[in-house]
């Protein structure tokens, strides 16, 4: 359970992650806005209160790991890592510039603190399974957190990895499904209906729960729960573009190109929310 001070800190962190991501998009003029904003809250709880990481030693032995298999949410991950102090905040504004260490999709060989290279959807799932299982083999007390998009789960590899996770009891891996209801071409239920995600993961052998993916209390409880023999899967009910009204209300918000003044307006809204928290 979050106390009120911690909750306020995480609220601020989530806002700062959104601000950071929008500043990255503003600097480049375009980017994967919707899916970056929808994971800001879960990233805030992971990096603000749950994960065992050290910004001064990004490859620390025994650290917890994040695999953002929906690699296009990189801008939100970069913002979280910058705020944590993994690298100077200004660096993230080089998003997608020539020679940058902050590419559109996460790259473990470029960005300090990024634990795995992702972007070809589905592939982060098996990678995360291997990292978690490998940590067990190495005798480390580490957890790996895996963020998968709800569009991404169209990929068959996701289900191979899910079957393996439960079948081999890889219970130091936590699956987080960003159920933001949209993919590039529209609503997931129109393109390829995911059905009841909680029931699906439960049927695969997970301890599966469905929570409000923007509710910091629910997130904290789900992410700090100790797994039993069954691995944990958390279905996060989220909104694509969460936290910026105009993005939430835009149907096609997977990748957006906006004029500078629009980004400034979004930033003004987010900053005023941050100020209101004191």
């Amino acid at each position, binding site marked *: 359970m979050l106390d009120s001070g911690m909750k306020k800190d995480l609220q601020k962190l989530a806002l700062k992650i959104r601000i950071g991501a929008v500043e990255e998009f503003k600097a480049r003029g375009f980017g994967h806005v919707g899916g970056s904003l929808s994971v800001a809250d879960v990233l805030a709880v992971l990096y603000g209160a749950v994960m065992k990481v050290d910004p001064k030693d990004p490859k620390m032995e025994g650290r917890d790991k994040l695999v953002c298999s929906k690699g296009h949410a990189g801008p939100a991950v970069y913002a979280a890592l910058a705020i944590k102090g993994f690298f100077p905040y200004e660096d993230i504004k080089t998003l997608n510039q020539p020679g940058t260490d902050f590419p559109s999709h996460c790259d473990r060989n470029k960005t300090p603190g990024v634990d795995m290279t992702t972007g070809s959807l589905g592939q982060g799932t*098996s990678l995360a399974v291997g990292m978690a299982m*490998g940590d067990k*083999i190495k005798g480390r007390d580490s957890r790996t957190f895996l963020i998968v998009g709800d569009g991404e789960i169209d990929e068959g*590899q996701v289900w191979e*990895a899910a079957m393996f996770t439960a079948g081999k009891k890889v219970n130091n891996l936590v699956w987080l499904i960003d159920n933001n209801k949209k993919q590039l071409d529209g609503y997931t239920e129109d393109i390829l209906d995911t059905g009841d995600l909680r029931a699906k993961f439960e049927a695969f052998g997970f301890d599966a729960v469905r929570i409000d993916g923007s509710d910091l209390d629910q997130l904290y409880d789900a992410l700090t729960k100790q797994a039993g023999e069954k691995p944990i899967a958390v279905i996060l009910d989220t909104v694509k573009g969460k936290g910026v009204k105009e993005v939430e209300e835009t149907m096609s918000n997977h990748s957006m190109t906006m004029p500078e003044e629009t980004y400034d307006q979004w930033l003004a809204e987010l900053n005023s929310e941050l100020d209101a928290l004191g």
Partner: protein
Amino acid sequence: MKIVYNGEKDRAFKDVLGATIPHLAQVDPDVVYLDADLMGCIGTAKWAKEEPVRAINCGIAEANMVGIAAGMSAVGLKPIVHTFGPFASRRCYDQIFLSGGYAKNSVTVIGTDPGVCAAFNGGTHMPFEDMALYRALPGAYVFDITDAAMLEDVLTQCKDIHGVKYIRVGRKNNKKIYEDGSKFEIGKGIVTREDGSDAVIIACGIMVAKAMEAAEILAAEGVKVTVIDMFTVKPLDEELVLKYAKSTGAVVTAENHNKIGGLYSAVADVLSLKLPTPIEYVAIEDEFGEVGPQDYLEERFRLTAEHIVEKVRAAIARK
């Protein structure tokens, strides 16, 4: 390096894999072995029951297996994965390409039953393109294994080499070329017969013994050829290719693979750029595989000593 070729069969590759993989896991606690429900085919199943933590049967899910192996590499392990050649290349290509190579993870991939060695499993299981795919993966190593001694040594070296390594090897026995216990320098071709300046045959895998046989047939006719075992198809030993292309002026390649993208392509790439030389090939003529005994398939796809002899004559005629 002692060449002991006399036309006799070597130990079965299956037995070598079944002994070497457990041995590597025994001597190195970071070695993990993953298979896609084909442990029984390479003699590792019994050991895997005794080593349930580091011998992992992933089930029939090759893409997932390769991704898991790459993830294990990222946390400090040394994964060796095995499945049949087509599934170790085509079926998991995007995963080995991105989760493996692009992400700079290290995975040793063993693809068994290359080309016609797939015999009775037929066209669905017969990779003539696996080397082409792995050659196109930046930085990858590609090995076409010649005999048991080579398999033991190359597999042992691979566990400690950074990057993606693809080992294509049969399960039955090839003809023995090298003395047991031989050490092989990765990236360096081996002159297995040095016999004059009429032509050079550059071969790999099952075609090395056939090249040796072809050289004997030609020698009886007074044609003197040198044979090179180019077991490391990538990175190619360009220096050796150029040396013998220069000294012989006629090159023939021989491989159990499509002529597109394999040894012929690699050698022709080097020669066309640095030393244009008459070159002929023995390889699959851009066809799919089919079912049958291996000796039938070798005839069907013209992977024979006699065909190499014809190609050597053709190359010499073009000098």
